[in-house]
């Protein structure tokens, strides 16, 4: 164990190795590591941002969907209302038409009845006149007895 020139020689090599490491070995790798750290941090931030955007757009999509649903319900309700209205209209117009037809038919029947009555009255009058002629055995002059006949007719 004796100290000699080796000490200085080893110290010189030590200094050279330190200088080399400080200048050429340490900085490039540290730069690469720091760059990567930055990239990772950026990536994480971007991911976080994307997540937030996704959440926001999901919320917006839900809102839109709700709006569309409400609009659809409105349209359906409107259509239903309109349908009911149309049915009501059809019903009332059909009823009016029916009423009109019934009224027509009634007046026709009335007319028929009164004309039938008239005919019947004529015939009865004729029969009565005939019957009376037979009973009286002589001709009833229609002109002389017209007043009487008409009165009879009225009474029938």
């Amino acid at each position: 164990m004796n100290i000699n020139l080796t000490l200085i020689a080893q110290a010189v090599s030590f200094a050279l190795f330190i200088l080399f490491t400080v200048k050429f070995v340490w900085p490039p790798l540290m730069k690469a590591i720091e760059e990567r750290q930055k990239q990772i941090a950026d990536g994480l931030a971007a991911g976080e941002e994307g997540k937030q955007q996704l959440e926001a757009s999901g919320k917006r999509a839900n809102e839109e969907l709700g709006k569309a649903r409400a609009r659809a319900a409105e349209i359906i309700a409107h259509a239903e209302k309109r349908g009911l209205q149309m049915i009501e209209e059809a019903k009332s117009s059909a009823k009016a038409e029916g009423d009109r037809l019934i009224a027509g038919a009634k007046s026709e029947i009335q007319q028929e009845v009164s004309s039938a009555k008239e005919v019947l009255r004529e015939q009865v009058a004729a029969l009565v006149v005939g019957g009376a002629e037979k009973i009286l055995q002589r001709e009833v002059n229609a002109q002389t007895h017209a007043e009487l006949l008409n009165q009879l007719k009225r009474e029938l």
Partner: protein
Amino acid sequence: MAAEQELTATSYIQHHLSFKAQSFGDGSFWTLYVDSLVTGAVLGIVATALMWWVVRGATSGVPNKRQAFVELLFGFIDDQVKGIFHGKRDFVAPTALTVFVWVLLMNAMDFLPVDIVAWILTHVFHQHEFRIVPTADVNTTFALSLSVWLLMIYFSIAVKGLRGFIHELFCAPFGGNPILWPFNFLFNLVEYVSKPLSHSLRLYGNMYAGEIIFLLLWLWAATSLSGAFFGAILGVGWSIFHILIVVLQAYIFMMLTIVYISMAHESH
């Protein structure tokens, strides 16, 4: 191992514990342990070059496995530094990385079986004496710890200014009263001396002891068949335990480096 030399326990240990020394002048100081220097330099160059190669193709996108491994290492070191040192880590973190990787690799040389390495070195590289664990050489550990110590003083002066540094030498930790100046200075002196000493000797002691225990086990293995058997089993056990020591010592050395440099940034 030279064939003409007789093999004894002493010569075996001595052989494995002798440095490849190259003298550059008179006096024992002007000697260079080529083995420590070369192994340390090769390991350091391999480690930094590997990291440099991976880092040059680094992408901020999806990393491949190679880059992911280096990133794990960087992240581990950066986290440790972050926990202790509060400031710009442009210099401290890469320094800690260099310390950790280099010390770890130099310590890990202890795992290589000494005799096989010695055989290869003798027959391929014709080196009879070559120690392959640079951190079991007190020069290496002192080189590291004194470099850290100089950094510590540099940062102390750079952050607080020369006045602040000297002020702290005399006025901390007991207070600014002039009567206390000598005590403060003495205290700081002890601290400044003990820091590099404990820093380097802890690592050196652990690695040296590990090496010696391996050598003793292999020495036992050379005595007989049963010695070889038990030596191998104990060698496996010690190797496994040594994995812990190697990593732990590298980790401790790095942590202390960070702690000392970060302490230099704090003013009292």
